[in-house]
C-alpha cells in the first residue's frame, strides 16, 4: 500500500494514528493505544462489536472527540488542535443527519456554501454530485419527500461535494433494509473507486466489512486486535475473538504438543500446516466450509469420528451438525449440488480435515 518508512505516508489522503488513548469517565477505555496506518485511496474498515471504540476513533479523526494522548496525521500534517470545520475530513452519519429545512441541492451544496464559493460553481458541483449518487432531478425536493436510501445518498453527496481528503462513514447502512443495504454496499464501493477518496468505514457487520474493504481493523475494548485484508482476516485470524467474530468458525479446544501437532480433549490428534508457536493450550479454528464428510471407503488424510446430530438444508448448501466422539460439536457445510444429503441424523460419519484448513490461535 506504499506506506512510508515512518508509516505516516505523505500522500494527501494517507491517515496515520499513533498511540491514541481516550478514557471516558476515568474508567472506560474507549481507545487503548491505537495505532493505525491507512493508505491514500484505501477503503479501510473499522470492525468490532458495539463499545469497541470504533466510533470514538472515527470521532477523534473528525475532531468531535479529543484524544487524551497520541497523534493523528493526515497526509503528513497533524490534525490535532484543528476544529472539525478546519479538517479536510467529512463524515456520513449513521442517521444521515440531512438538514430537514433545506432542499436536497442546498444540503449537497452546504460545504461549498460555507467556503463561500460562487453560486454558479456550487450549482454545477451539486448537479455533478447528484449525478454521481444517481439523484438527478431531485435537487429541489425536501429530505422528507425522499426515501431512507435516497436520504443516505444525499448525505453521501453532501459529504463528498467539497472533495474531502478523507471520508468517514459511521455505520451508514445500518438504518437501511436488507435489499437497500446490499445495493448501497456496491454503490459505496463504486463511489470510492470513482472519487479515489480514502474511505474509513465503521461497522459491526462482518459481512459488510468483508465484502467492501481493502483492509479491515478488528477492534475490541479500545484495542486494535488485527489489521489485514479480508482474506487475511478470514483465513488467518490472529486471535480466537477475531476467528469467532468474522464469519462462522468451529472452535476446538486443544493442546499443542509440538509445532503443527495438536491433541484434542478426547485424545484424538490433528496436524495443522503453517503452524509455529509454543506448546500449551490453544484453540483450533476450522471454517465449516473447509471440513468435509469422508466417503465410506476413503482412507487417506486425517479425520475425526462422530455422529450426525442434525442436517440443515438451505438451498445452495447443506449444513451438518456433528457430535464428535471427543465430545465437541462441529458444523460442516457442503455445497448441495442438487443431490440428496450425504448423511442423515444418527449416521456415524468421519470428518475429513485437511491440515491446511486448520489454524491454531491463542485464546
Amino acid at each position: 500500500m506504499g506506506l512510508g518508512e515512518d508509516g505516516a505516508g505523505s500522500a494527501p489522503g494517507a491517515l496515520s494514528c499513533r498511540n491514541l488513548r481516550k478514557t471516558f469517565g476515568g474508567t472506560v477505555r474507549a481507545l487503548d493505544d491505537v495505532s493505525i496506518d491507512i493508505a491514500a485511496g484505501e477503503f479501510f474498515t473499522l470492525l468490532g462489536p458495539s463499545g469497541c471504540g470504533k466510533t470514538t476513533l472515527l470521532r477523534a479523526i473528525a475532531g468531535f472527540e479529543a484524544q487524551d494522548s497520541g497523534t493523528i496525521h493526515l497526509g503528513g500534517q497533524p490534525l490535532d488542535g484543528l476544529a472539525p470545520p478546519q479538517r479536510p475530513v467529512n463524515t456520513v452519519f449513521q442517521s444521515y443527519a440531512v438538514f430537514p429545512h433545506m432542499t436536497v441541492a442546498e444540503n449537497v451544496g452546504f460545504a461549498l456554501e460555507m467556503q463561500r464559493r460562487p453560486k454558479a460553481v456550487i450549482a454545477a458541483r451539486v448537479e455533478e454530485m447528484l449525478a454521481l449518487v444517481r439523484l438527478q432531478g431531485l435537487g429541489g425536493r425536501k429530505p422528507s419527500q425522499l426515501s431512507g436510501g435516497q436520504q443516505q445518498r444525499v448525505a453521501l453527496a453532501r459529504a463528498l461535494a467539497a472533495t474531502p481528503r478523507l471520508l468517514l462513514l459511521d455505520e451508514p447502512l445500518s438504518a437501511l433494509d436488507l435489499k437497500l443495504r446490499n445495493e448501497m454496499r456496491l454503490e459505496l464501493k463504486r463511489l470510492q473507486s470513482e472519487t479515489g477518496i480514502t474511505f474509513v468505514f465503521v461497522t459491526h457487520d462482518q459481512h459488510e466489512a468483508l465484502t467492501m474493504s481493502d483492509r479491515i481493523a478488528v477492534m475490541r475494548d479500545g484495542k486494535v486486535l488485527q489489521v489485514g485484508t479480508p482474506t487475511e482476516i478470514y483465513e488467518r485470524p490472529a486471535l480466537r475473538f477475531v476467528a469467532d467474530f468474522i464469519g462462522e468458525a468451529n472452535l476446538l479446544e486443544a493442546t499443542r504438543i509440538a509445532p503443527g501437532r495438536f491433541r484434542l480433549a478426547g485424545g484424538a490428534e490433528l496436524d495443522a500446516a503453517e503452524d509455529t508457536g509454543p506448546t500449551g493450550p490453544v484453540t483450533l479454528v476450522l471454517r465449516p466450509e473447509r471440513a468435509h464428510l469422508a466417503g465410506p471407503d476413503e482412507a487417506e488424510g486425517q479425520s475425526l469420528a462422530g455422529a450426525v446430530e442434525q442436517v440443515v438444508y438451505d438451498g445452495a448448501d447443506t449444513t451438518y451438525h456433528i457430535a464428535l466422539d471427543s465430545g465437541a460439536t462441529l458444523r460442516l457445510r457442503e455445497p448441495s449440488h442438487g443431490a440428496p444429503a450425504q448423511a442423515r441424523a444418527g449416521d456415524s460419519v468421519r470428518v475429513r480435515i485437511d491440515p491446511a484448513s486448520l489454524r491454531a490461535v491463542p485464546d
Partner: protein
Amino acid sequence: MKRGRALLLLPSGIVIGAVLVLPLVMLLVISLMQRNPNGGIVWGSFTVDAYVSFLWERGFSGERELNWDYVAIFARSFALAGSATVTSFAIALPTALWMAFQPPKRRLLLVFLVTLPFWTNLLVRNYAWMLLLRVDGVFEQILHTTGLLTGRLGILYTPTATAIGLTYSFLPFMLLPIYLSIEKIDRRLIEAAFDLGAVRFRVLTRVILPLSMPGIAGGVVLVFIPGIGAFISPELLGGGKSMMVGNLIQAQFGYSRNWPFGAALAFVLLALVLAATYLHRVRFRSAP
C-alpha cells in the same frame, strides 16, 4: 363508532363552550347595549354607540368629532408589547442556546429556575421592580456607589419602566419555547454542519435558527399578545401615565362604569390580534 368518537369530544366541548364561547358571546351582547350610568347595562337596548365612541366623541354641541386618544393607546400598547417582544427575544435566544448545550441534569435545574418567578404573584414582582427602579432605589444606589451615575435614574413611571416590566414578566414565555425547540434539534445535524466546514456563527444562522423557528414563533405570540393586554406593569411601573389597552378596558369595567365600551374595546383588540396572528402565520408558513 363515529358517534362514540364524537361523544368523546363532549367534555372538552363543554369546557370550551363554558369558559370561552359563552363569555365571548356575553361580551358581544354587552358591547351592543346601552350603558347604565350606575354600572352594568340597560337590557333590551341595542346600539353600536360603544364601537362608534372608539373613534368619535360627542362634542359640547352634540356633534361627533374624531378622537385619536384611544387609537393612541392602542398604538402605544402595540409599540410597548413589540419592544418587550424584541428585548425578550434578544435575551432569550442566547440564554436558550446556552441552556440547551448544558449537561442534561443541569438543564432540568435551569428550566426550573426559569419558571421560579411564577411561584410569586405578578403584582408582587412588579412592586419589586418599583423598589429597584425608584428614586434612591437599589439600581440608583448601585450606580451612585460605583460612580457610573451622579444624577437621577429617572426610569420609574415612564414607558421605559413599563417596557422593562413587560419584558421581565413575559421573558419565560419567550425563553421556554425557544429552549425546547433548540433542545429538540438532533445534535448530529449540528455536528454535520461543523463537519462540513461551518463556523459557529453559520451553524447558528443556517441550522439552529431555522430549525428553532417554531419555538421562536411561539415565543413571539406568547409575549406579544399578552403584552398588548397587560395592565399591571403599565399601572405600577408606568405610573398610570402611559396607559395601555389593558388599563383602558379595566377602567371601563371599574371606575368608568362603561361596560359596553369596555366590551367593545376588548373586541377591537381581539380583531387586531387575530389579524396580526393571521399575518404572522402567513409570514411563517414556509417555516418547518
